[in-house]
C-alpha cells in the first residue's frame, strides 16, 4: 500500500495532465488552473514544515551551545518578529507605512540587493582565475563574451573607431546575439525538451521512483 499508492497516483495524474492539453472540454480545460491553485495552497501549508524545521535546528544549536549559537538566537528572534508583525497587521500588511513594509524596505531589500550585488565581485574573480582559453571551446566562449561586453558599453565603439561603422563592436555584438547565439539556444532548448519528456515519462511510468520512498 505505502509504496504502490503513490506510484499509482503519480502515474494516473501524470497521464491526465498530458491529456488535458488535447482536450478543450471541461473538466480538462480547468486542470491547469486547478493545479496552479492547488500547488500554491500546498506550498503555503508546507512552509509550516520548513519554518518548524528552521526553528528546531536553531533551537537545538542554542540548547546544545554549539558554535555560533548566538546567531541561531538572532534567526529565531528575527523570524518571530517578522511573523508576529505580519499576523498583527492583517491582510493589509503590504501597504505603505506598516511596520512590515518598513522591515521589507530597510532590512530585507538592502540585504537581498547587496547579496545580489556581490555577484559583480564574483564575476570578476571568476574571470581572473577560471576563464582560460584552454582549448578552442573555451576560447570561443571567451571571444563571444569579450565582444558582447565591449559591444554593450559606449567604450566599445570608441575603441573600434577605426573600423567601418557596421563592423564596430556594438554591431558585432548585435550580430552575435541575433544569429549564432540563437542557434545555440535552439539546440539547447530542443535537447532540454527531449530530456524533460524522457524524465517525465520515466516518472509517470514508475521506472524512476527514488523520490517516493519506493525503492526497488
Amino acid at each position, binding site marked *: 500500500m505505502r509504496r504502490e499508492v503513490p506510484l499509482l497516483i503519480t502515474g494516473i495524474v501524470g497521464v491526465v495532465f498530458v491529456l488535458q492539453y488535447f482536450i478543450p472540454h471541461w473538466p480538462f480545460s480547468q486542470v*491547469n488552473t486547478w493545479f496552479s491553485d492547488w500547488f500554491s495552497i500546498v506550498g503555503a501549508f508546507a512552509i509550516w514544515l520548513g519554518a518548524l524545521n528552521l526553528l528546531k535546528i536553531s533551537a537545538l544549536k542554542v540548547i546544545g551551545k554549539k558554535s555560533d549559537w548566538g546567531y541561531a538566537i538572532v534567526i529565531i528572534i528575527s523570524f518571530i518578529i517578522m511573523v508576529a508583525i505580519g499576523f498583527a497587521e492583517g491582510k493589509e500588511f503590504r501597504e505603505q507605512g506598516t511596520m512590515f513594509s518598513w522591515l521589507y*524596505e530597510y532590512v530585507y531589500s538592502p540585504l537581498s540587493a547587496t547579496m545580489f550585488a556581490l555577484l559583480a*565581485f564574483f564575476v570578476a574573480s571568476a574571470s581572473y582565475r577560471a576563464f582560460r582559453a584552454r582549448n578552442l571551446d573555451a576560447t570561443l566562449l571567451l571571444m563571444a563574451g569579450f565582444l558582447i561586453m565591449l559591444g554593450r558599453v559606449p*567604450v566599445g565603439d570608441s575603441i573600434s573607431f577605426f573600423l567601418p561603422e557596421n563592423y564596430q563592436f556594438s554591431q558585432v555584438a548585435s550580430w552575435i546575439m541575433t544569429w549564432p547565439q540563437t542557434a545555440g539556444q535552439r539546440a539547447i532548448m530542443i535537447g532540454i525538451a527531449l530530456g524533460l519528456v524522457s524524465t517525465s515519462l520515466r516518472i509517470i511510468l514508475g521506472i524512476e521512483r527514488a523520490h517516493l520512498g519506493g525503492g526497488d
Partner: protein
Amino acid sequence: MSTRAKELLVVGIVLLFCIIAYLGKVYGWVDTVVFSPMVSMIVVGIIILGLVFVLIRTLQGRLINRQVVFLFVGIAVIMPFFMSITQKIRTSPEVQQLYDAVAELPKGSKVLVSFDYDPPSAPELQPMAEAFLYYCLSNDLKVIIMGLWPQGAQQANLALEAIMKNEKLAAKGLEYGKDYVNLGYQAGNEFVIQRMGADFSSMFRTDYSGRHYEELELVKNVKNFSNIDYSFNLSAGYPGTQEWVQVAVDRYGLKMGCGNTAVQAPMMYTYLNAGQLVGLLGGMNGAAEFEQLVKYPGKGTKFMLSQSFAHMIVIAFIIIGNVAFFRSGRGKKL
C-alpha cells in the same frame, strides 16, 4: 599590531568617515564631490598602474588574492560616480524599434505597462521604467500600470514620483485615473495574463489604492487586450516577458515590447527574431540608449560610465589571467 586590531582599525576609520560624511550631508557642510578632468585622468592612471602590477605579479606565477580583485572592482565602480566624463551612446536596432513603435502611437492610445520586478533588480529596470513612463505621459499616451510581482506596483509608484518632478510633466497637470492608473499587484503568474485576455476587471477589481475598476475613467471601458494599443513589460525573471509572449502575444495578439535585465535579454532575441516582440531594452545599456532617444537623461545614462569601467576591469582580468596562462605553459593549471 595583531591582524584583529588592524581590521578593527580599518572598520573604525571607515565608520568615522561615514559618520562625518553623513553629518555633512544632514547639516549641509559637504556638497557633492566632482572630480576635475585632471583628477579623473590621474585616477584612471592609478587604476591602470595597479592592473600592470597585477599582471607582473601574475606573470611571476603568483596569483593575487581574490580580495585584491574585489578591491579593483569596487574602485572601478565607485570612482566613475565622481567623474564628469561624457560618452557617446549609440542606439542599437532593438531599442530604436521600441522607440519607433511607441512614437507612432496616436495621442490618447492606451499603453499597458507591467512591472514584473522587485527592488534588487531596480538598478537596471527602474531607469527604463522612468524613461518609458516619461515618454508616454509627455506624449499624451494613456498609461495603465500593473504588476505580476508583489513589489512591482510599488516600483511603479516610485518611478511615477520621480518623473513627476520633471518640469515639463509637472506643467501638464496630469490626473490620476484619467491619464494614468496603477492597478496594483495580482497573484497568479501567467494565469493572471490568461484571465486578463477575457476580462481585466475580473483580475483587478480595484486599483492600487482601492478605487473600483469601474470608477476609473481611463480603464472603465477597457475590457481586455483588444483595447490596448501597445504593451511594455519590465521583467526580471519569472513571471515575466516569456509568459507575456506565450500568453498575451501568441494567443491574444497583443503588440508588445519589453525591458529586461541583461541576464534575461539573450533569450528574448529569439522572440524578437520571430516578431513576437516589438522592441527590446536589455539591461542598463538599453536603458541608457532609450533615455537618449526620449531625451530624459536619468540614472541609466549616469551609470553607464561605471558600467564601462566595470566591463573594462573584467576584460582586463580575463586578459591578465590568460596572458599568464599562456606564458606559464598551457598545461599547468594556475
